[in-house]
């Protein structure tokens, strides 16, 4: 059967998660054997006790009581060990799965990750894992029930084979019915877990926007949306519990069947004198190990199925492809050397005027140098400046709707380049591709002489990427900054902060670098968050700075300070800046104008700032600002 193969495959995977599977399984099987024998031993001791009791022999009673007590202690020891071992196993599996899940979240391609709802992931991390980590334990319990039933049946056979056989016959009936009843569990539990994932997603998204929801008096509608999801959970849970209820009903009846047989048939035989009272009582006690377990086996099976279902939801994520650099067909990626004579896009309607631009920038740099002397101390990374070459790059988030269309640009090493264009034209997307966050395809992107299609993760080491929306983690400021460079010294931290014009407000607060950051950095103003994000990025060493509208929430003066010191710090490095700000474009060596995913114009600000160009329409008639 197909499902059986799938189950054994899943079990192998679970085994792979255990640290020392051999030892664990050995311990488990030892426990299993002793735990399965233990009820039979108990029944044996009880029989001795009762027989002594019925025989009214005091010394026999005492001896039997001693045996009984010994068995009890043995059972307690084994049982206690079993409990703590199973709990440990469950927790070990939970831990491994949590680790694997978090890791695969970090390691999967960003593009894919962004399509997964975070709340659903979070619920897989909690709700599903608590169920799925019980896989082995549930299997163990199933096996134990089966073995106990088996041992009980064997012992019963030695007591009285006729009664035992009659009892045993009820077993298969009970089992088959129970198994059939619990078959839908698999699907139902999957439904339930999915519904729980949706609830947690909905909750996360709603709570994150609580302020906007309040502003728009949307509490009620948000609550209604949440309620719809929560009701779905309820429905799924009730549907699942109806299966369990049917099972419980059958167990209620089925568990008493062996009793009825023992009472009837065994009683008849006892009256005939072919069975002692002690014997019949021992049979009755053994019925517990036969009737009930057999009926409950269906439920155990259901639990195994349920945990396997949850495990599959976990592996669903684990199985998503990792973001590993593909190995090029023709050997090392370094062999992809750019042809130096490669031309700039022919569709550009203006030629670059490089010399002029570079001098211009040098001017602005020297001016900046006088305003912020502290920036001089920024250590120069080894590889200063890398050129960037993009050829025929297209990119789409959703198949069929390309966001970047056949982009070809060349950015000389050490230059400052501005990407301009209406919002939604693809600037951020291009920057993310350059930052190695999205793997370029089709088309090629080279940083230096390396092809990003094959070395996107290398690109992330040499580029400093400043996202459009700053994201701070909760914890302390220091922890946030050290994310970029764990070994950064106090002086380096302060320097980065000062370049980002953040030192002043950080020092103003008593906490300083140890000031607590609340979730998403909400305890800072928008501009403060941006500046902290800049400082953090600067702590990372790199040769290419990719900036996505980093100062949109910062006031004019602060912005000016940031850019002055930033450009100084980035001296000799390649900078690509997506921005609407005119001042920055004016300083740039080259401006690429994007529209609808294509590069439509390029050149220096002076070249482009002429009537009739797309660029001038971006700049607007005010001339003062490019985008307000």
């Amino acid at each position, binding site marked *: 059967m197909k499902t059986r193969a799938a189950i054994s495959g899943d079990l192998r995977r679970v085994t792979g998660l255990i640290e020392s599977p051999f030892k664990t399984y050995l311990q488990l099987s030892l426990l299993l054997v002793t735990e399965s024998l233990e009820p039979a031993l108990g029944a044996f001791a009880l029989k001795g006790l009762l027989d002594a009791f019925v025989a009214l022999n005091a010394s026999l009673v005492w001896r039997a009581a001693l045996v009984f007590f010994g068995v009890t202690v043995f059972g307690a020891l084994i049982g206690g060990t079993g*409990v703590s071992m199973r709990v440990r196993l469950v927790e070990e599996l939970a831990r491994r799965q949590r680790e694997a899940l978090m890791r695969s979240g970090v390691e999967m391609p960003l593009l894919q990750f962004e399509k997964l709802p975070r709340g659903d992931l*979070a619920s897989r991390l909690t709700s599903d894992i608590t169920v799925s980590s019980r896989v082995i334990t549930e299997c163990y319990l199933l096996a134990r029930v089966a073995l106990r039933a088996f041992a009980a049946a064997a012992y019963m056979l030695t007591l009285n084979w006729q009664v035992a056989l009659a009892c045993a016959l009820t077993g298969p009936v009970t089992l088959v019915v129970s198994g059939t009843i619990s078959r839908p569990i698999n699907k139902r539990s999957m439904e339930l877990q999915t519904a729980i994932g949706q609830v947690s997603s909905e909750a996360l998204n709603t709570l994150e926007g609580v302020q906007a929801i309040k502003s728009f008096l949307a509490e009620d509608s948000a609550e209604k949306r949440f309620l719809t999801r929560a009701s779905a959970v309820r429905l799924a849970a009730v549907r699942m519990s109806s299966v369990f209820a049917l099972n419980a009903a059958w167990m209620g009846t089925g568990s008493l069947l062996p009793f009825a047989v023992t009472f009837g048939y065994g009683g008849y035989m006892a009256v005939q004198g072919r069975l002692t009272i002690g014997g019949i009582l021992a049979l009755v006690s053994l019925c517990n190990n036969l009737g009930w377990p057999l009926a409950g086996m269906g439920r155990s099976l259901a639990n195994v199925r349920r945990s396997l279902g949850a495990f599959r939801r976990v592996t669903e994520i684990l199985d998503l492809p990792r973001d590993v650099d593909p190995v090029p067909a023709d050997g090392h990626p370094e062999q992809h050397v750019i042809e130096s004579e490669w031309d700039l896009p022919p569709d550009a309607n203006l030629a670059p005027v490089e010399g002029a631009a570079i001098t211009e920038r040098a001017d602005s740099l020297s001016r900046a140098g006088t305003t912020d002397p502290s920036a001089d101390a920024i250590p120069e990374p080894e590889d200063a400046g890398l050129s960037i070459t993009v050829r025929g790059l297209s990119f789409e988030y959703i198949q069929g709707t390309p966001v970047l269309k056949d982009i070809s640009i060349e950015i000389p090493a050490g230059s400052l380049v501005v990407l301009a264009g209406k919002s939604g034209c693809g600037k951020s997307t291009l920057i993310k591709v350059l930052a190695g966050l999205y793997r370029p395809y089709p088309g090629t992107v080279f940083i230096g002489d390396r092809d990003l299609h094959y070395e996107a993760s290398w690109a992330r080491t040499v580029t400093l990427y400043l996202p459009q929306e700053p994201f701070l983690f909760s914890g302390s400021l220091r922890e946030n900054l050290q994310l970029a460079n764990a070994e950064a010294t106090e002086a380096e931290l302060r320097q980065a902060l000062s370049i980002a014009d953040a030192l002043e407000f950080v020092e103003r607060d008593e906490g300083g670098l140890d000031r607590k950051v609340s979730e998403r950095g909400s305890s800072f103003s928008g501009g403060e968050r941006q500046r902290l994000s800049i400082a953090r990025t600067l702590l990372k060493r790199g040769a290419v700075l990719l900036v996505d509208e980093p100062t949109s929430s910062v006031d004019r003066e602060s912005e000016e300070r940031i850019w002055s010191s930033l450009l100084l710090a980035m001296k000799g490095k390649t900078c690509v800046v997506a921005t609407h700000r005119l001042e920055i474009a004016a300083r740039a060596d080259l401006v690429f104008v994007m529209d609808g995913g294509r590069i439509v114009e390029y050149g220096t600000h002076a070249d482009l700032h002429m009537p009739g160009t797309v660029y001038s329409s971006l700049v607007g008639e005010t001339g003062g600002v490019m985008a307000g």
Partner: protein
Amino acid sequence: MSPKPSARNDKDGGDDKDGRKGKIETSDRAREEGARTERSREKRPDSWRDVRDMLSFLGAYWPLYIVCIFLNICANLAYGPGIAYSLAVLTDSITAKEISLVWRAARLLGLMAAAMGALAGISHFLSNWTLEAVALNIRRKVMSRALRANLSYWHIQKTGDTVSLLVNDTETAKQGLSLLHGLVGDIGLIVSCVVTLIAWGPGTALALFVLAALCMFVGARFAEPVGKVSDEYQAETANTTSAATELLSGIAVVKSLKAEPIALGRALRTVDRLYGVARKRGRLLGLQYGATAITQGLSSVGVLIVAAFLSLRGRMTVGQAVGVMQLASLPLNVFGSLGESWATIQQNLAASRRLKVSMEIPVERDAGDALAEGSPDARGALQPDARAALHPDPRMAPRPEVQTGLQQSHAHTALHPEDTDFVLEFDSVTFGYDRERAVLDGACFRIRERQKAALVGPSGGGKTSVLRLIQGFYEPWEGTIKLRGKDVSSIPLKELRSQVGIVPQEPFIFPGTVRENIAMGNEQASLDEIIRAAKLANAHEFIAGLPEGYDTVLDERGGNLSGGQKQRICLARAFLKDAGLLLLDEPTSSVDAESEALIRQSVDEYASRKTVLAVSHTEGVVEGAGVVLSVADGKVTETRRRD
């Protein structure tokens, strides 16, 4: 899954040891499975009060819960005295060698089997049905509360934590309720057993009492440490959830910083800590199991010896003595596992405590009425029609059917501003987020009707804080804020916010269609109105270009939109609301000049009808402002005035 049925079944055994084992197995599972999140506290509160609190979650469902308990007791009666009685009949019939009695015992058992089946099925379903309804109710309450909490609540609380409350703690509390009705059923069982025992021979009953007390004592000794470790366990689970949620939210940053090892390491440390606590818990549970098992074995033997002694003296028939064996094992099981169930319940109680706390978090000033109402549908009618805000004159607006007198009086005030034509007045307002540092320090300014005011200043100066104060998210420490001459703190928040529109600094997009996003909080808006608003925000063009236009589903946090597109959707949302006072918090920071020029036109047009207060660093929106207010060092100064 419910641990209960198996626990109940296990009691039917003549073999007490095995019965106990089944029980422990299941409660042990419940504990392992229960999801747990709890910040550990220094003081562990009174358990009985917690139980009461947990029961209070039942709300209107308590009669059903009582029925569940009743069914449980019925089932226990059959399983306990029922089987024992049959067994006694059987044994005596065997000693008497009377075959008809044997058949009677078997028939009795058969009947009981059928009854049991029906009873077990019904009670299982009913209990699950009830508890799921209760869980839904809990989720609704927690969410409802969280949505209406003071904004400062979210300064310390993490969203991941509340999500885990809604998902995991609710589940755990539900399990607690189920365990509790099982326990109450057990008490019914014990009482019935004890009554039978007393009828048969008070001596054994007495012995049972003494030994049961011993069992309970041993069990209870573990309740405290297990409960404590459970608390710890839950706190760590909560930490793990929060850490994971955060890691997942910031993954792009982590990747670009090449900080995967550090960030992942931080998150994994929480996992490791959780594992450490879990192992401690496992050891404790094992110890507890062993200790109770030994005590219970001892107790069974003790009762047996007393019974043997009594029947030797001829005070009891042998059948009765055997029945005592069966009977005594049941309460002993229950008592022995009571301590343990108690330990399980500790965890459920911890979850329910957490839920209780989250249901009592301070809410905004008049949110209490909304919470007191029943379902949100019922409340929907109370919500002032957002279109009411479209009209400056409230009498012209379609009035909502249900209207409190309070709201009417305020609407009245808004209509006839008392001897002032200022829409907004800040009168020496002092405010800060924490006591140490005031963000605003005696800020004063005024804005007239149909004026466009600009709020400028260094970042971190307090501009966003001013806008938050206007919307009543925080109360000023000192001074007053007046909206149309009326102190903001005395206007019901609902009304206040219906008069104020905002484009927040960080655009908020929820997963849903573009249309739903623009119409947020205004479900009655027609598509035409939505399109009109989108056009004003210069968003129509790009929305029309989306795969499914206004019905395109947006991702979490607007992941499939560019920054400027998100901002424009938020602008459209505010234009649709068309409130009397529009607050713009850097509304065009990610928007290109062309869009911005168009947006500025819309804002100017808006300002000709209503009042606008715009925060911006760039001249675009600020251009042509009647007043420019600059915020710096906690003060607000009017730098330009053109009337």
